[in-house]
């Protein structure tokens, strides 16, 4: 199996799906000749032409809104939001349109589309190139929200997202694009939207994460193993629909839970996971449920000391694991 990075895995997924299904097209800023600012769509315009790899005007609402319309006219759009931080102008089109059209038409219309958005910090992106947007959108019924952490999952989940008859927000952590490499089979495969994945089995405590934080948690778990603590690391992968059974099953085995995300803590996705654990695994708990998230400041600053202070790190995560293990 060849080893590729997460960005290449995403490009392969788009390329292989477009080769099979001529209804699929990509629509976003700079996706054409430039190949996207991260180069995810590099080379695809030569293969599929400018009618299927389309440079959009610099306007996020119409990037999503036009894809909503196109999806209702028998095509399969992949919208690219250049940075997740720029998704706000498209909020109405995503939340009130894409996510509600099937429901509001009583099942008559469907909106099969993917919205890809690079998210997350730790890359000197400052306030407007570092944001986490998952909690806001995972709140919305009718939308699916996917946040893969590995090349294998990214490729398999993106293929599932493109085939899904519903709008899927596909979150790609920018720092994982080239940093995270992994083996990806050459044959055609899917990773289904929904199930979480236990990336590291353990016995003493459960940690839940997604995106870059999954890797920081794995690193911290490795450190804890040397100290004799066995940490189970669960990759949520899909935030909506959420794999409640895997979360609860893990906590019932280990009796301790930690949730880690970059998004600021208050109203973050960790609150939902913690509530589910309190509701369904209260009697198995041996310690308070802990959360690690970014501080409640508006967004991640540019200067390195400020960015480092914002970001959860493997060291901060390991410290929380130790507290939990010792409880």
């Amino acid at each position: 199996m060849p080893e590729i990075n997460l960005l290449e895995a995403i490009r392969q997924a788009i390329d292989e799906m477009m080769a099979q299904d001529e209804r699929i097209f990509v629509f976003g800023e700079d996706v054409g000749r430039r190949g996207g600012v991260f180069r995810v769509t590099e080379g695809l315009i030569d293969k599929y032409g400018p009618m299927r790899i389309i440079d959009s005007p610099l306007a996020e609402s119409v990037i999503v809104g036009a894809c909503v319309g196109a999806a209702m006219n028998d095509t399969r759009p992949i919208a690219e939001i250049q940075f997740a931080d720029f998704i706000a102008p498209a909020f109405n089109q995503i939340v009130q349109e894409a996510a509600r059209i099937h429901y509001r038409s009583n099942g008559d219309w469907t909106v099969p589309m993917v919205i890809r958005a690079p998210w997350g910090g730790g890359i000197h992106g400052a306030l407007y190139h570092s944001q986490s947007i998952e909690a806001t959108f995972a709140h919305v019924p009718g939308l699916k929200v996917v946040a893969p952490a590995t090349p294998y999952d990214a490729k398999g989940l993106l293929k599932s997202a493109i085939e899904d008859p519903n709008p899927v927000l596909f979150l790609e952590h920018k720092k994982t694009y080239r940093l995270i490499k992994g083996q990806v089979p050459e044959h055609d495969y899917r990773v289904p939207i929904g199930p979480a994945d236990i990336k590291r089995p353990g016995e003493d405590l459960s940690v839940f994460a997604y995106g870059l934080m999954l890797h920081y948690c794995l690193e911290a778990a490795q450190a804890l193993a040397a100290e004799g603590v066995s940490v189970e690391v669960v990759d949520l992968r899909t935030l909506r629909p959420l794999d409640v059974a895997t979360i609860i099953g893990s906590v019932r085995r280990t009796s301790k839970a930690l949730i880690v995300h970059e998004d600021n803590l208050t109203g973050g996705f960790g609150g939902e996971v913690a509530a589910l654990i309190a509701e369904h695994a209260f009697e198995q708990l041996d310690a308070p449920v802990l959360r690690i998230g970014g501080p409640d400041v508006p967004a991640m600053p540019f200067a390195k000391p400020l960015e480092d202070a914002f970001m959860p790190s493997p060291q901060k995560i390991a410290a929380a694991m130790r507290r939990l293990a010792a409880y």
Partner: protein
Amino acid sequence: MAVSITDHAPGTADAGAELPATTLREMFRCMVLARALDERMWLLNRAGKAPFVISCQGHEAAQVGAAFALTRGKDVTLPYYRGLATVLVMGMTPEEVMLALFARATDPNSGGRQMPAHYSSRRLKIITQSSPVGTQIPHAAGVGLAEKIKGGDAVVWTSFGEGTTSQGDFHEGINLAAVHRLPVIFQCENNEYAISVPQHQQMAVRSVADRGPAYGIPGISVDGTDVLAVYEVTRRAVERARRGDGPTLIEARVVRLTAHSSDDNDRTYRSPRELQSTRRSDPIARFAAYLHEHDLLSEAEERELRAQVAAEVDAATEAAERAPLPEPESLLNHVYAQS
């Protein structure tokens, strides 16, 4: 690309001569039917049987004229909440309209989920609408983009009020359609009010059509109370779109004969004199006079047509009232489509 502002859109005489008498009478019937349904809905609202009504009264000529230039079953429409006459021409039945008014389970628009006048029918290629205004304009551009990608020749038609032209989605959607020469017709039904806010507080241009050239497309202003004039400008826009020459922005100047909705009282912001003069621009009276004048419809035939329409509205109302309400358990259906 030819870019022009046509302030002198063709009048009734240009188009009327070309259409067969049966078509002209059918256009009239659709206008009368839309009015009769609309008036009945207000009565039902005032009788406490329908919580909410929003009107197309005064817009019938603009909608019927435009929709007759489209091809039913092929072209795609995205009509806004005043589009009752539009959807009737595109094939929605009076009973289906009434099912939406009463929020019945069998309402094809939304199964009783949306407020009335949020039209939708996949069968009729009417794309579902929401309440935040203007969101359908990027959708229309996207439907046109897909049509171009697929190599099809359907035309996309969308409507909205002049207040909506202040929204970003108006700009973004028209701009995209213009850049890619998409087969989309943008019809602004300018009744001079966005609820209570008059046009001069909405925009500094005299006509919404003035904005067409800013996007590199024709902007045409037409008397929207003249059904045949609207038919003619739309027919030309449809030809242009099907040829691959791109979108057209049409401003149909109409009158709003009612308050914004059943929850509004327009006497708080329109003078009695203005309300009187608005009545004199009734598009249905205007078209009736034209048909009489050209011996295309006698007064006896008009009375008979109106009686038939009234019977149709009665039957639609009774059938819809008898239809079942949605079951509470159905609340959870259709959150996600199943693959």
